């Protein structure tokens, strides 16, 4: 193989290697993260905007938190005048795109708080993606009648 062909191949190999090392989580920016705190030990909804700055699609698969025994990825719908909630396996975050977890749509359901969560608390959630990579994000605890991340 002449040098003329080897160099571009070498460069391509480097790029592939770099691509393989960058995880999905490294390209995800989390913003506007909040939790709607409900009285007692009722399950709470958690919301966040996930932005994918990478060239490859990513997908949110699960989440966990030291503050809750169980976290599930859910989707609400209101087709035919009926409100339903269903578990979902993953939420796609397109390359150079966004996925929104917001009230009335995709959300994380937090169950069995290990200690009471108070309004104003910052709760750490570890989000895990399709390739197994993870991202920690702080979710701010907001009152039950909040309509978004900001007061």
């Amino acid at each position: 193989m002449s040098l003329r062909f080897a160099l571009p191949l070498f460069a391509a190999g480097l790029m592939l290697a770099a691509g393989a090392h960058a995880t999905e989580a490294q390209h995800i920016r989390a913003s506007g993260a909040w939790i709607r705190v409900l009285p007692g030990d009722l399950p709470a909804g958690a919301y966040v905007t996930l932005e994918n700055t990478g060239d490859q699609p990513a997908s949110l698969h699960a989440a966990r938190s030291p503050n809750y025994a169980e976290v599930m990825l859910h989707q609400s719908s209101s087709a035919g005048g009926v409100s339903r909630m269903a578990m979902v396996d993953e939420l796609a975050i397109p390359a150079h795109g966004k996925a929104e977890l917001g009230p009335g749509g995709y959300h994380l359901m937090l169950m069995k708080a290990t200690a009471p969560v108070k309004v104003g608390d910052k709760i750490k959630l570890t989000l895990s993606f399709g390739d197994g990579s993870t991202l920690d994000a702080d979710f701010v605890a907001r009152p039950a009648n909040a309509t978004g991340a900001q007061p």
Partner: protein
Amino acid sequence: MLLMLAVGTVLLAGCHRDDDIQWQLTNVSGHMPDLDFQLVDDHGKQVSAQDYRGKVVLLYFGYTHCPDVCPLTLAQLHVVMQRLGPLADGARILFVSVDPARDTPEVMHAYVNAFDPRAVGLSGPAREIEALSKRYRSAFTREPDRADGQYEVSHSSAIYLFDGNGKARLLSTPSNTQDQMVHDLHLLLSLGARS
């Protein structure tokens, strides 16, 4: 005399206006039965629809273990009530549980008060709740238990609006905006104040 005439005209207009009102929500006047139920409020007291006569009622079915849609709806209704200002005292949000097994008056009390002081949590025997739900052609279904023994309940997403006489007047669905709700409640509450 002119003033009296003017006042008389306004009063007459007031009587007639009811039919001509341009509602922004779905008008169900005459198409749904009057508000009627026997349930238990969030203080553990037996209540009936009669106890809410004189108030504009916003009826919504839900349950407290619903972490997303029910709190979203109640939070939006709280914003609507705030936008109505002092007029909102003439209205009550009746949050009827479709999950009476888990929603005791104590749980309901803490829940509704986290949203709005004018919200009342109603629970009671399953057959009474089914009767009320059927009365408004609404339905709810307990979904299969998950591994942890918890479950979801699918339920109607509509909000039913009744005037101070317990007459069904309007229906709000998720496609309606907060502005439309505020607009119509303003009118409904003003009607109530006149009669």
